[in-house]
Structure formats: C-alpha cells, structure tokens
C-alpha cells in the first residue's frame, strides 16, 4: 500500500514493522513526530523521558532485556545522551537498538548545526542516512537487522528536510520480533576496566567486519540470507519480502565522466542539479565502504562529494588518496540546497537571472515576519518585568527564548537545555555575590525537569544566592505541546504520577520558593525584586498554562478608549501582536488599536496603561 508520509512518520512505521516493542524519546524539532506517531501503535510501549540521556538508558535496558527498541532525539539531544552511547558501543545490545537522531542544517529551530555523523565515528557504531520517506521506513528495518547481527546500537541520521518532508511510502505488515532471552553476562555488560579492555578489542573487530560488509552493494540481502534459517512468522520473512532489492550503498551509473559521491538529502539535491551523471549513494555513511569508493572513483575526470554540513565523507575520501572536489567549492554552513549547488557549479547569474534580479529590485522593502510569543502567552509578562528591572537574564531553550527579541529584549545568554541556572551561578562566582542581586535565570518547566534540577542543586550546594524563575506553562510548548513529568500526564495523555516543582525546589535545599501568576504584573514585579535582593537562593514559579492549551475559555477582551489614549505607546512594550499601531496615510501620531481576533483577554496591556484607556469588555 502506498501512503504519503512524513519522514518521521515513516521512521515510526519502520519501527512498527520491525517489531519494536519499546520506544523512548525526549521531544525536539525536527524529531518529535516520530514518537507521536509511535504512540498511535498500541503494540509499542512508548514514553517521553525527562531527557535524552534517560531516554537512551531506558532504551539500553530494554534492548539488553531482549526487546527491539527505538530511541529518538534531535541532534543536540545526542550530546546529552552521549555518555550512555559511547559505552553501549562496548557492551553491545541483545535485542536490536536503533537511535534516530534528527539534525537541523540551516538551524530552522535549533541553536547549532552540529553533524551527528561524527558521533558514529567517535562512538564506533554504524550510521545510516535515509534520503526520503521510503528510505526512512526501509533503513529502520535494515538498522534493526544490523544492530542484532553486529551486536551494537545503530544510529540513523535524519535532517530537517528528510524528517519534515512527506513522500510516497510503500508500507508492509508488522512482524513480531522475538524477545531474546536475557542471560546474565557480567563480562559483557559490567564495564569495569578489566572487562572494558576486552570489549574495546571487540569494538574494533566489529567495525572492521562492518566496513567489509559495507563494500557489497546490497548489504541487506546478506542479512536476508543469514536470517533465512529463523523459523516461523518472524523478521526474516519481512526482510525477504520487502528488502531484497534494497541496496544501502548503491551505484547509479550515468552519462559522461562526471561522478558524485553523496548521501542523505544531499543526494536529492545533487540529482536535481547534476541530472544523469554517475552517483555513489551511500546509505551507510559510517563505516565508509572503502573498496567500493575506491573502485567508483577510478578513472573519473570530475569527482564531486556532495554532503550537507561538515566534510565528513570528504576527509575520509582524501585520506584514501581519492582526488575529489567538496568543501572547496560547496559551503559547509547552512543547507546545501539545489540553488546553492547550482550557483557554485554553474556560476551565479545567467542573463535572464540578472534581468530578474533587476525586476526584483523594484519591489519595495518587504517587512520581516519574525516569530513572536503568541497573544496571551504567559511568558510575556515575565520578560516585561525583567526588562523593566534591568536585570541580567540567563535564558534557556524553549518558546520563551523569543523573550530575547525586541521589544522585551530581556535575555543575555542562551546556550543549551538547562544551562541558565549553572550560568547564573557561574556569573555570580565570577562577579561577586552582589551580582546575584542584578540577575536571574529563566527556564521553562519541561527544560527545568530535563536538566535544570542538577544546576539548581549545584547553586544551592555551592552557596550561590541566585534567583531562578521557572516559567511553568504545564507543557513542552515549542515542540508542539508534549506532556512531561510536571504535567501529571504521560505520552498517551493518561494520568500518571506528577512531579511537584515546589517540592523539588525545596528538596534540593531552596527555602525561598514562591508561586506567582505571570499575568499579575504588580505581584510578579514585587516577587522578583524581593527574591533577587534576598541573600539565600530562591525559586519563583511563574505558573499559568500555555495559552494555546486553553484558548477556548476566553470570555473577555479589551478595547481602547480613544478619548483617553494619549498614544504614549507604553502598551507596546510587551510586544503583543494584538496591540497595534494604526495610522491613516499622512497621519503622524497614530492610534493604538486592539486586534479583537487575536486578543485573548490576558489583561497585560490594561495593567500597563497609565491613563486607563484600555478597558475590559465582555465578548
């Protein structure tokens, strides 16, 4: 059956068909929809873990326990999960373990552009890279075969354009994977130095076998044969039926003497631009099939390596003595889109394009449309207050990072998940205790549970006096409203044990814990002033659900009384999309108007107006 599926949905489908019974993840764009899709398959136990490290540890336990397991995260999440990853490479698995990591070239929704392929190299495990939705489904099946055959976790790398592109997918049926026996094996799973030294050798042998296997064009076929003696309605059948023509590393012979070595989405871009030349498309990017690439490169007049991001393949190709054009011509930064490739190969401007550029120049400046905090967002008031008080704000990862943009502009730094608290503490230690009176850390509820608790523990333990504001909107907002331990609901929306943020703060030793409503600006400001001045560490929980979760409850909105409005523009300081300046042509001053279709009745602007010109009305 053919379906139009997102790459992420196809990954989930592949895992389903592969007989996965356990799936773990922490949400992160562009990987989130994998686990959301998995949650619709009732046969699979799935969970949002508090962070990626825990997700991978749960996955490791489940795999060593004998099940087939999928673990998913975004690229920066793998930094968090790197600790278990590197040693899992030593212990190996039992049931198959596939870790899907979604990179974000071009940083559509990320703080960096790191390239997951280096993790495969460093952790000494194989990495597959699908180029479209069909391959997402197919490669997951292959990855599980590889994982069990070579007794190691397998990485599958997606990029945004693969994860978030719908494509045609031929799907198959789910086959039950065996729950392999769990047998205690101290020397394999307990990584004391003596055992780890033995496993270290096995890792090298495994990679050598994998590199050799990668040379054959149709790697998957090999596993079909090896699994063929498995009796019954198991995966062997699946593979025979669906994977006989799947070639992980394939040569597409074309015209002329130009040839391209490529993988992943870059393959699609290259096909678009180079047309019918010869391609070596690598599905297994690590380990590199050395014999295959050397053979392919032989006698080529022009050989390009087209890869998005860093020169991962290029460096290895050059180490093999292959003369190839790569990053000398193509950029390592941003997305390697077809337009970029075309420009680098064929030159920038044809005559036609120059004319069009001229025509385009006649169009007046087009205003940007930057992302903004939603109307009625509970974070808005917090950033207004922080700016008003002139505090240094150590920020964190989430929707609220948008508080850094004008007009609120109340954020000094944002590095990674959970960093705000440690950075606040570090700044205080560098600049002295009085600095804590001029600074706060701001972190969302999901982010705090992800990796803020250890930072807060450190701040208390090492006698910091900093103030941490937890923006508790009762969800993981930016990634599309996933539950987390603080919401009291699990991935499938079932009620579960709820983590209490107040109790957590108290348990790590914070005595000053306050809960405030971020829409009550006066109390919020008072609380922040008090707590930054306090000599002890403190936590302020600004608690109000994400406006997108309970929009329907709004019964009121506000209007501007034109008689009273002096156009002082104080209400614009919160940067609310519902509070607008209206000017008729030639008019200098302008008026403030409330966009009633956007207004949620949060009353922030009402509190800001010194003239009482913004009034509450019933809807």
């Amino acid at each position: 059956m053919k379906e139009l599926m997102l790459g992420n949905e196809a990954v989930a489908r592949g895992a389903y068909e592969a007989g996965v019974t356990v799936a773990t993840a922490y949400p992160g764009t562009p990987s989130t929809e994998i686990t959301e899709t998995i949650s619709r398959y009732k046969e699979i136990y799935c969970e949002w873990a508090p962070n990626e490290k825990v997700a991978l540890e749960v996955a490791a336990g489940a795999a060593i326990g004998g099940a087939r397991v999928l673990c998913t995260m975004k690229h920066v999440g793998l930094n968090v999960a790197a600790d278990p990853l590197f040693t899992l490479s030593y212990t190996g698995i039992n049931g198959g373990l596939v870790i899907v990591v979604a990179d974000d070239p071009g940083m559509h929704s990320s703080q960096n552009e790191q390239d997951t392929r280096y993790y495969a190299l460093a952790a000494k495990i194989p990495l597959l890279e699908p180029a479209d939705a069909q391959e997402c489904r197919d490669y997951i099946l292959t990855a599980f075969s590889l994982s069990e055959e070579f007794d190691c976790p397998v990485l599958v790398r997606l990029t945004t354009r693969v994860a978030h592109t719908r494509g045609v997918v031929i799907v198959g049926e789910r086959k039950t994977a065996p729950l392999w026996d769990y047998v205690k094996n101290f020397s394999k799973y307990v990584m004391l130095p003596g055992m780890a030294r033995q496993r270290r050798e096995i890792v090298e042998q495994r990679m050598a076998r994998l590199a050799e296997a990668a040379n054959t064009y149709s790697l998957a076929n090999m596993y079909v044969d090896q699994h063929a003696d498995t009796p019954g309605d198991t995966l062997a059948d699946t593979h025979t039926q669906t994977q006989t023509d799947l070639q992980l590393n394939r040569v597409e012979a074309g015209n002329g003497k130009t040839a391209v070595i490529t993988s992943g989405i870059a393959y699609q871009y290259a096909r678009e631009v180079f047309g019918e030349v010869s391609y070596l498309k690598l599905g297994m990017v690590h380990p590199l099939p050395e014999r295959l690439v050397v053979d392919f490169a032989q006698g080529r007049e022009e050989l390009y390596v087209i890869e998005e991001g860093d020169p991962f393949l290029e460096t290895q190709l050059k180490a093999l003595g292959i003369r190839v054009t790569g990053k000398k011509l193509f950029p390592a930064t941003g997305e390697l889109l077809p337009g970029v490739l075309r420009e680098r190969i064929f030159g920038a401007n044809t005559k036609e394009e120059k004319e069009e550029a001229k025509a385009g120049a006649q169009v007046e400046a087009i205003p940007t449309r930057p992302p903004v905090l939603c109307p009625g967002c509970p974070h808005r008031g917090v950033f207004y207050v922080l700016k008003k008080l002139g505090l240094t704000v150590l920020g964190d990862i989430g929707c609220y990072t948008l508080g850094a943009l004008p007009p609120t502009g109340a954020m000094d730094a944002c590095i990674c998940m959970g960093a705000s608290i440690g950075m606040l503490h570090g700044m205080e230690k560098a600049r002295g205790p009085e600095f804590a009176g001029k600074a706060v850390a701001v972190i969302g509820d999901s982010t705090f549970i992800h990796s803020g608790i250890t930072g807060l523990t450190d701040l208390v333990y090492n006698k910091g006096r900093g103030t941490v504001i937890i923006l508790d909107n009762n969800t993981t907002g930016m990634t599309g409203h996933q539950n987390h331990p603080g919401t009291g609901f699990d991935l499938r929306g079932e009620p579960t044990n709820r983590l209490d943020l107040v109790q957590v703060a108290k348990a790590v030793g914070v005595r000053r814990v306050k809960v405030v409503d971020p829409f009550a600006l006066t109390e919020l400001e008072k609380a922040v002033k008090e707590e930054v001045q306090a000599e002890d560490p403190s936590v302020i929980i600004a608690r109000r659900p994400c406006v997108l979760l309970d929009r329907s409850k709004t019964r009121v909105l506000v209007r501007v009384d034109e008689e009273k409005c002096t156009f002082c523009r104080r209400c614009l300081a919160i940067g609310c999309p519902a509070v607008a300046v209206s000017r008729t042509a030639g008019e200098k001053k302008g008026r403030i108007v409330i966009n009633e279709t956007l207004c949620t009745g949060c009353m922030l602007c009402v509190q800001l107006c010194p003239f009482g010109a913004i009034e509450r009305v019933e809807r």
Partner: protein
Amino acid sequence: MGAQIKDELTKKRWPGPEDVYNIILAGVGGQGILFAARVLGTAALMKGYDVKVSEVHGMAQRGGSVVSYVRFGRKVYAPVVEKGRCDLLVAFEELEGLRWLDHLCTGGRVILNRQRIDPMPVISGKAEYPKEIPAIIRRRAGSVELVDALTIAGECGSLRTVNTVLLGLTARFLPVEEEIWLETLAEVAPARMLDVNRQAFIRGYRYTQPSGQA
C-alpha cells in the same frame, strides 16, 4: 503524463527534470497551510504521481512565515522549490505572496488571497505594510487570481476553511479530477469538519474573479 502537465500549465526555462510541477504555499502560522499541502500531495499521489511535500515545524510556526513546497511529477528528487522555478504560487496572505514572488518562474501563476495579516514590525509601527501588492505581483506573474477567501470561508460557515477555499481554487489549475480531490478531502479532513470543507472546496473550485477587480 508529466509532459502534459507542462503543456497545460507553463513552460519552464531551465534544464533538468522537465516533468515536475512546483507549487509553493505561503502564508502565516495558523492559516492551515499544512492541511492544504497534505491534500494537494495526497491527491497527486492518488492520481499516480511521485510527490514530495515539505513542511515547517517548531520555531517557524510561532506567528512567523510558513511555507510549504509541493512538487509532483514522474519522479521528484528535492523537496524544495528553487528561486525562479515555482509554477504556481498560492499566497494565503498578501505580504507572504510578495515575499515568495522571486520564486515564481517566468509566466508563472499566482493565486492571491486578499488577506492582510500584519507582521510584528508593522504592528509596532516600525515598518509599513507594502502597498498595492496585487499590482506588483501582476507585473511579475503570467496570471493572477485574486480571491477573498476569508469572506467565502465565512459564507461556508467557518472562517477556518480559508485554506480549503484556496485549495479548491488551486485544484482547478492542476491535472487531477474533481472526484479525486473530493475523495482526498474526505480522507484527510476530520470527519466533523468534512461538510463545511467540501463546501469551501467547491466554492474555491468554481470561483471566478469578478471583472474589473484591482
């Protein structure tokens, strides 16, 4: 079949896979672009084409510009539409239509929804919303369909069907039969919204511009 699409629609001026049709849906988060793109893609698949539909998630959705590329034909490689190669630009909002105009191919078609959603720099009075966008677009495009999809959606009973009205109008210019569209709509739209969506689609599909419009 692919070559027919080209004949029916517009000639391309570049070498490469000739029989891929490129659509850009551009608008603002919350306008239902992903739904429209999904229906377009699914209908093209039902017709037997290879299809790719790119989506935008995460940070870009927080009130920012949203764009979706829909490409279909005999064989589709890249999921993105390059500058100057878009056959059909469906602008859900005027400013976004202007923003993506440089992606239109020579002689390409634009469907322009006469809706204006101010971006933050305009809301705060720091920038002006460009004037006479339809006229600018006319200068560049081979043909322009102007439509007030918001009003039509309201007449259909839900302002949220703006996307389906525009989808209907878009569908009219594509080599896929009406039955396939309606079948696809029934498959993709939530059941409780199907009737209003079907009505909105048909209103878009049968829409003709009043003569003399700007």
